């Protein structure tokens, strides 16, 4: 029976359109109903897949955000390290046209707290740059 079933399936998938339509007619199949069922099946599968893809993108965005938060926490506390990192980020920011204003001051003149804020702002700015991702 398997051979006969496989042959019937082959007919259903490969027969010329005219023979296939005649087959449906002889089988008493309602073509409009087949069309409705086909559209519904494709509609649900495509929507489900789209939702899953969007969910994955949202998850990726959340992971990026979490990584960014993690990086801002990792801003060094030691002043010398802070100054070195700030200088490095300033140079990279200049290269990509993104800068944070020091309001006409030098890095070395900033108190620790402002220096940390400056570094965190540069990190956020450069990480959110789509060309750097």
């Amino acid at each position, binding site marked *: 029976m398997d051979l006969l079933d496989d042959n019937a399936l082959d007919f259903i998938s490969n027969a010329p359109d005219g023979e296939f339509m005649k087959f449906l007619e002889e089988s008493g199949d309602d073509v409009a109903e087949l069309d409705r069922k086909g559209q*519904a099946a494709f509609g649900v599968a495509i929507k489900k897949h789209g939702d899953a893809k969007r969910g994955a993108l949202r998850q990726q965005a959340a992971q990026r955000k979490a990584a960014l938060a993690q990086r801002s926490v990792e801003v060094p506390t030691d002043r010398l390290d802070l100054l070195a990192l700030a200088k490095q980020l300033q140079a990279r920011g200049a290269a990509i046209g993104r800068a944070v204003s020091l309001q006409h001051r030098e890095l070395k003149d900033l108190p620790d707290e402002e220096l940390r804020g400056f570094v965190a702002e540069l990190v956020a700015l450069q990480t959110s740059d789509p060309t750097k991702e």
Partner: protein
Amino acid sequence: MDSSHIDDEPDEPGDVLASDAEVDAEVMATSRDAMLRRRLVKGASFLLSRTSKLQGTCTEEDLLQTALTAILERRRKWKKNRVDFIGLVFGVMKSLASNADRILAKTTVETVSESVLAGDGLGELASPLANIAGDGPTPQEAYSAKEEQAELDAAVASLRAQIEPNDPALHIFDLLLAGKSKKEIREQLGLISNEFWSADRRLSRHVDAFATKRGTE
């Protein structure tokens, strides 16, 4: 279409796997083709009519949608060198229907065994040890297999009897059972394309009606 080997098989060196973009594009293109959608729904309906337990539990829409989802989520790969997209969907539906039916049949048998055997003194047969004690089939299994084969032979004979003796569909029937491919059959019968597909339609119609009738009995 040849959907006899689809995607449960391991990849081989010459296999060409479709990319994500190709799969997505093919699903979208097929969703816009009314004739292809009809063929897939009819195929799903046919496959369900061949199951003993699954029919009545799920619809052809469910089967088609589940197959498409499995393909879109890449749980089923499309090896383009082996099968076209429609063949892939048919193959995945066939595999899903067969697996689900087997699981349902097993569950049903176990449930029946527990309730029936507990009351008639044959309860020990349900023990897992009874199943691994012997190497070959038990007399009961051998009897069931023989009975199943006899039923199958009767079904094939009954189906054959429904085809007109002079109909080329009967020759296709016999040659298929003799293991010939469609191409070989067409060459052997010397039929032109229209004649061949027309005879194949009548045969497929008998097979479809027979499956539906058996399913409702």
